[in-house]
């Protein structure tokens, strides 16, 4: 057993930390949060040059063949620095889907371009029911003359506004088993009939409504097998869930660091407020939450990385990290007091992320349902 990072992972972490502190200051985060695009192409291309987009892709697809665990380390740093933009969509939701389920041609076409930062993918999975089960997939793709016509509304689609291609999860047949008959299509976002509307959200992340109004795609755009897309979705959701936990661990660590630094400096009653036990105990609880989230997340990430069965560990990680990040940012707000209640202060950026992170890919209740099932209850 080894709970430490490898030398390579430490190097990745250090370089990511250094790079992001310089290239992704909070000023830029705010500016991009407020913008419609939600990302800076300058920062995006610099990240691509560092090899981040292709980190987990094999070398023959323009990547560097690193592990999912390595990607988790990087995502933790990105979460720490609140990096705005479609990295998660392009690499985790899009890239990994193409990598695990795509045909050779698709991989050759898309992965090197994702790795170079030239192509952005987005995953259109959830619909107005806002849930992550197969039965919620009502968007239809009907075969017609060797092509498919997609019709339906996808909601809460992350970064669709910036995407060149959208992975659309659609229903190609109804058999009574909701998990049967799901197909994933790789749709050019510029196709006629694709309409993307940005949603205004708490975290100011770029979630969209994407309407597919009789969008025609070729058979070649299917990722994986027709009607057999649900296992692919489950696999990608599992990876995305852990990846999100890693991001949340980074965010929680940042909120803790900010609050502790403030508690050391802010003087009231003639002493730093960090010398008061009430504040100390908040901080102790926050540190405990951050530690707990980190180990439980890395355990799940390690399992995913090793290709081991990970349903239980992933659900445990998300059930815990979702609530822990929320508690940490809430306590941070309490420590910052009134100044934290301003737009000028940075802590609310983390609080917003915690709220959004808790919901995406299933909240704590959702994952406790899985844990209970895995326990044989």
């Amino acid at each position, binding site marked *: *057993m*080894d*709970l*430490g*990072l*490898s030398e390579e*992972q430490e190097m990745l972490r250090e370089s990511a930390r250094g790079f992001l502190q310089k290239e992704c200051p909070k000023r830029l985060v705010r500016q991009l949060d407020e913008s419609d695009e939600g990302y800076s192409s300058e920062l995006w291309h610099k990240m691509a040059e560092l090899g981040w987009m292709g980190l987990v892709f094999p070398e023959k697809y323009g990547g560097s063949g690193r592990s999912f*665990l390595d990607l988790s380390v990087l995502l933790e740093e990105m979460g720490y620095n609140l990096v705005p933009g479609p990295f998660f969509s392009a690499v985790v939701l899009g890239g990994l889907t193409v990598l695990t389920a795509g045909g050779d041609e698709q991989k050759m076409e898309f992965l090197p371009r994702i790795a170079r930062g030239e192509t952005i993918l987005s995953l259109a999975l959830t619909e107005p029911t806002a849930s992550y089960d197969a039965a919620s997939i009502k968007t239809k793709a009907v075969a017609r003359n060797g092509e498919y016509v997609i019709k339906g509304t996808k909601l809460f689609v992350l970064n669709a506004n910036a995407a060149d291609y959208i992975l659309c999860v659609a229903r190609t047949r109804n058999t009574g088993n909701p998990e049967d008959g799901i197909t994933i299509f790789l749709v050019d976002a510029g196709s006629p009939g694709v309409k993307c509307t940005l949603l205004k959200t708490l975290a100011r992340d770029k979630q969209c409504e994407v309407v597919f109004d009789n969008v025609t795609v070729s058979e070649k755009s299917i990722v994986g097998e027709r009607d057999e897309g649900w296992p692919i979705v489950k696999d990608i959701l599992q990876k995305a869930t852990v990846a999100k936990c890693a991001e949340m661990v980074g965010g929680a660590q940042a909120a803790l660091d900010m609050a*502790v630094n403030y*508690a*050391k400096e802010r003087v009231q009653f003639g*002493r*730093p407020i*960090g*010398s008061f*036990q009430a*504040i*100390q*105990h908040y*901080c*102790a*609880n926050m*540190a*405990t939450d951050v*530690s*707990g*989230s980190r*180990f*439980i997340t*890395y*355990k799940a990430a*390690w*399992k995913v990385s090793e290709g081991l069965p990970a349903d239980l*560990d992933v659900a*445990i990680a998300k*059930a*815990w990290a979702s609530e822990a990040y929320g508690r940490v940012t809430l306590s941070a707000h309490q420590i910052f007091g009134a100044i934290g209640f301003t737009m000028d202060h940075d802590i609310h950026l983390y609080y917003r992320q915690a709220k959004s992170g808790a919901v995406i890919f299933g909240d704590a*209740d959702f994952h*406790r*349902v*899985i*844990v*209970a099932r895995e*326990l*044989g*209850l």
Partner: protein
Amino acid sequence: MDFKFTEDEEVFRREIRQWLEQEIPQRWIELAPDIWEETEESWALAREFQRKLGQKGWLAPAYPKEYGGLELSHMKRLILAEELAYSRAPLSIEVEVTVNWVAPSIMLFGTEKQKRDHVTSVAKGDIIFCLGYSEPNAGSDLASLQTRAAEAGDGYVINGQKTWCSYGHLADYCWLAARTDPDASKHEGISLFIVDMKTPGITVRPLINILNRHSFNEVFFDDVHIPKENLVGQKNKGWYQLVIALDFERSSIGYAAANQRVIEELIKYAKETTRNGEPLANDPLIRNELAQLTVENEVARMMAYRIAWMFSKGLHPSYESSMSMVFISEVMRRTADVGMRILGHYGELDRDSKWAVMNARIMRMCLSSLSIGVGGGSNEIQRNIIAMRGLGLPRR
């Protein structure tokens, strides 16, 4: 990163399990004493078991071989602790205190003679120490202790009162912190001593605990003469030795493993019990609670693993141990609470009732779990440690 145990470690785990299946006495399983529930009968069973454990080298597996240990790796010790706790093996808290705090302190600060006289005996399970730390006016503020050890002739004379001495009525020796320089500042004048509990002048009075059992004692020292050679380490530096000892293996893995067992029993109960015509396991609220307990216990387990892993890397956990203790103490209290909600009225019944379920473990745990999070440094003190040592927050 690698979260799996090696094949060699897994073999070791199986070996322990097999051994425990054979060696845990049937009578102990019937008595099923929870923490703080030992009786004279269970204590005797436990001491016999501990000697067997000692013969295997498993009572103090970390010790050097010359003192009866195995110099076992930290990971194997973690596995051993996990299996002992999960199997509810007959080990009392005082054994753990003796093995993990007292004897290692003797190895670190003691004379050759003290090591020869005591460490091997501890590893064999032959002697047990009780802690003479707390006093009526020195609890969390332990350094304000007032029990006096005055130099007299070729020894020391001890006067004062200790309290909360767990199993002081059954222990062979007391590991005593006493004031040797009353004029020095409070951290400076303390020394540590080994005191034979049979020494004249020692009076032990029971404090009956919340489980209605005799586990704690007040210990009165009335002109107790002890030889000079019973001083351990440097005179007046006892506080610093004591604080170092507090950082010794304080892994909470035993608690996490024991609690895991309780959660598994609750899950089994929920599956097998029908209420209003439906298995309890079908109730979404109960499923949610049991899932959350599992999540929390897994977090606790990883925190405990971290401690062992840090030791294995030559790192010295301090606030990390506090984190892990605070966390598991609260998980255990919640486990008892959730258990009561799942069991309902049945959770109230004590073991003598024919209606009792789960061997009345939950009702006893409701009481016993109050001690985890108080004894050995309250959760408030642990949080102070996390804040000040871990996060660098100022004292003033």
